């Protein structure tokens, strides 16, 4: 994961130069603004590195390579869901239903395998379809029925949270459970499905590889394709984009469908990790995913949502939580630290940055 972190700023910076809006704010840097610019651009990466080194020096167990990988594994779910949130932030919105979609995916995958004795591949396909479907419904609410993003996805979040409990009578789905008609559930979690979280490619856990690939894909899509650049244009100024002939609604719809799919991929990893249809899974995911996507807007000093920033944000949260846990920091202190990190990131992007941040959550409503 260290490689993309370093690569991120240059590559994404190149992508940013191609954006015409970027040139407006470019002025000759004085020495003072040069330092500030440096702080804005690399300050967050520096904090991540400092924290990492601090934990590695302070705690022997933090230095183990397996700790590094389990940390990245911990971050992988938040990272993939955060990528989806990033996409909706790119078009100027926010998807609040991601946590519940991930939770729904856990239940659906468990139902497919345990209730209907399907193989892992079928469970995966059904989950991805369901995720895309929720994204499409969100898009319908937002684009066609013109309900503001936050409100539409808030509503769908509640509906999904309740709806997923209906077919399972509010119970976690596990193999060997007694069904409504008194019979025992025929299936179980299949080994190929469990491998999503538990398999390794070389020393690297599979979910970390999956998230790495999705991050590369998202980065490429957003900065190297016409669609991605137009999504940024839609987010920056939908009216201007519309006047320039962009079909704004389609791009916003696309962002929500992709967000639903990404959230369901996060749910697949969770489901495979837990090994049962845990009804409480994904509960804490929404806030973490939004936080890493927000942190991501500032990480590289871009002041806009971007794929590598989100990944770095997730890795930072992973380092923090694992490091604090190992040093014996009480659990209630971890949220405080998470909040401070978010605040720091926001300071970088809103206060210290010369460039106006293009993502201002308040502007969404």
């Amino acid at each position: 994961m260290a490689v993309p972190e370093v690569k991120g700023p240059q590559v994404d910076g190149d992508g940013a130069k191609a954006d015409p809006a970027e040139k407006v704010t470019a002025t000759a840097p004085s020495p003072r603004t040069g330092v500030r610019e440096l702080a804005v651009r690399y300050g967050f990466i520096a904090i991540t590195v400092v924290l990492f080194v601090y934990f590695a020096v302070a705690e022997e167990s933090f230095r183990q390579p397996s700790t590094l990988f389990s940390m990245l594994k911990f971050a992988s779910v938040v990272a993939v869901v955060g990528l989806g949130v990033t996409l909706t932030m790119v078009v100027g919105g926010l998807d609040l239903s991601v946590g519940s979609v991930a939770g729904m995916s856990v239940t659906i995958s468990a139902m497919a395998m345990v209730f209907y004795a399907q193989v892992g591949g079928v469970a995966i396909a059904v989950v991805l379809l369901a995720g895309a479907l929720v994204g499409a419904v969100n898009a319908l609410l937002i684009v066609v029925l013109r309900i503001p993003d936050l409100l539409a996805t808030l509503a769908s979040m509640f509906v999904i949270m309740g709806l997923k409990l209906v077919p399972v009578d509010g119970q976690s789905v596990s193999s060997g459970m007694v069904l409504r008609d008194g019979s025992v559930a025929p299936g179980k979690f299949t080994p190929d499905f469990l491998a999503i979280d538990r398999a390794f490619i070389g020393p690297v856990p599979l979910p970390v590889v999956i998230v790495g690939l999705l991050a590369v894909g998202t980065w490429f899509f957003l900065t190297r394709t016409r669609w991605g650049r137009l999504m940024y244009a839609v987010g920056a100024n939908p009216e201007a984009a519309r006047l320039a002939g962009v079909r704004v609604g389609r791009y916003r719809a696309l962002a929500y469908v992709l967000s639903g799919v990404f959230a369901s991929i996060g749910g697949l990893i969770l489901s495979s990790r837990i090994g049962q249809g845990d009804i409480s899974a994904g509960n804490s995911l929404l806030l973490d995913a939004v936080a890493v996507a927000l942190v991501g807007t500032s990480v590289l000093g871009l002041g806009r949502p971007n794929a590598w920033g989100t990944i770095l944000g997730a890795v930072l949260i992973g380092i923090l939580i694992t490091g604090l846990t190992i040093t014996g920091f009480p659990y209630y202190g971890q949220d405080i630290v998470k909040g401070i990190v978010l605040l720091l990131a926001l300071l970088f992007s809103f206060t210290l940055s010369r460039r106006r941040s293009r993502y201002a959550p308040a502007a969404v409503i």
Partner: protein
Amino acid sequence: MSKSSTSTHLTRGRATVRAGAALLGSALLLAGCSQDLGPTGSAAPPPETATVGEATGQKPAPFDGAEPVKIALVQNSGAGDYFQQWTNGARQQAEALGIEIQVYDAQADNARQATDMQTAIGSGVDAIIVDHGQSDTMCPLINDGLDAGLPVVIYDVEITACAPKAVETAQDDASLASLILDKMTEDIAPGSPVGYVNVLGIAPLDRRNAVWDEVRAKNTWDQKFFVGEFTNSVATDNAQLVDAALKANPGVAGIFAPYDELTKGTVSAVQQNNLQSQVKVYGVDISTADIEVMTAEGSPWVATATTDPNAIGAAVVRVTALELAEQLDSREVVFPGTLVTQELLKQNSIQNLDQLRAELPELNMTEVATADWIPVVSF
């Protein structure tokens, strides 16, 4: 909204940056301070301190070396009174044994407990304790730990089938149920009409149910009703069920409700129907709040059987120490319960758990999982 703030931003730029930098500085300072708290979470509220017993024997390997033994405690949840006490007991016993204990608290997030377990396995500890969790989630990882050569001790996770090499510990539900039902047998005549409040399908309650079936048959008690459901507010919801059952069967002499939330619901239903002089209620578990209910004027809750979470946490650490020293001969250790009667509470004016522990030292289970080289803690 964002457009209006852009224009003011330009004029206020410098001041904003200074304010931001000051805030940033103080935030960093704060973060810096908080990381100095030390390795064992000294920010936790002061817990009950233990009295440490004396160890007479020679310490066996690996406790005889200069390097302290390290263990990890991988918890599903460490929040709430019960688990705070459990963890406190474990920490104090570990300290008495010179063990460094690293606590991973997943905050009731099963996925996080899985990654915690993985971190713990790779962290270079000598043994791992797993406290609660889903067996589907934890079993493969417990086996990973065992395969890595680490002793793994489980508290209250169903793993016998899938990880037979792990050491399984649990509260002895059969002993809890037997204790309280022996008391009920003394009080309630054979053949009397009785009521039963329980929820089947939850492992510890199922085990208590097995003892109930046996004792009820032996006493030829006539079970007039069997109700109970598991919800978000167990006591309130079950009070309604028991209320209805009592209205239909007002003549019962005793009710068995083997989990304190069920017991509390049953007690309030009995009181609603003004039956407290005729119906006796028998429960399981105790907390300071439960003591208040039991000792209240005219309470029908006459006895309960319980264990002390502090003592259980400590005993699990002792089991782990014995396993590390290769002195544990069984794969299964159960912790026995203690009977607490309303009479005892009232006679000694006991109002909280500390006073109860002072009155009933057997709650400390100092005889369970011990050896002459282990300084046993009691609370």
